[in-house]
């Protein structure tokens, strides 16, 4: 018997840690991984809410979990393309340091 709110708070904690990691990390792959962490936190929240909704309406609601399904698909695709981009950047600039990839500025 666990209050669903606890799951949500956990999701919030994981999300914030993901944001903090995004801000701290200098390796671009680490930054990417922090994004994955944030996505996972959100997945947890979705599933918790779908459970809550099932309990409110009284019968099984799976729409939240369908959403998570799609999130996973998109995360996979995004990870593939993103890592390919990182490889391309590495080939061009020979560095994985986020602070040194700053050409898109005024």
């Amino acid at each position, binding site marked *: 018997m666990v209050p669903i709110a606890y799951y949500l708070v956990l999701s919030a904690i994981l*999300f914030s840690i993901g944001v903090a990691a995004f801000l701290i990390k200098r390796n671009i792959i680490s930054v990417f991984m922090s994004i994955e962490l944030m996505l996972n936190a959100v997945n947890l929240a979705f599933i*918790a809410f779908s459970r809550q909704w099932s309990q409110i309406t009284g019968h099984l609601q799976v729409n939240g979990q369908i959403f998570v399904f799609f999130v996973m698909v998109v*995360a996979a695709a995004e990870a593939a393309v993103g890592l390919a981009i990182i490889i391309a950047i590495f080939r061009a600039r020979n560095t994985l340091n986020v602070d040194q990839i700053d050409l898109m500025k005024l």
Partner: protein
Amino acid sequence: MHLALFIVFAVLCVAGALNLLLQRHPINSALSLIVVMSSLAVLYLLLGAEFLAAAQVIVYSGAIMVLFTFVIMLLNAGKEERTHGSKLAYIAGFPGAAALLGLLSYIFLSRRGEFGQARLGEYLATTSDLSRVLFRDLLLPFEVTSVLILIAILGAVALARKEH
């Protein structure tokens, strides 16, 4: 019992996340992330999402994180150097993250009663439940995601190819 399981795996999640944050070498961060994902899979099970728990382990930990590990090893990413980046990230970012955490926690905990309690074993979402929705109501989006994956593959190949 449910609570004990929850607490254990929740602590594991947070610990892994913190380790991701604090480690200097990306491969350590990647492995920590795998720990987080696996713990999350257990938590999904506790919430009754069987299929998704399995998918989490197979897709996330098993495929995506492996991809990450491959790339880290391919690019031979080393320990992070301390470079001067943007102070702004710290000045604006940390308060932002802290505010997010505080705000969300406040929202969820203050409405604890509305969310109710989760019991183990109730409202289990089997694969057939999910597939019923996927292949009937959401067939088009499902097929579109396959196109999406195809495009992702093509994109990845095109981007990561060696220039001749």
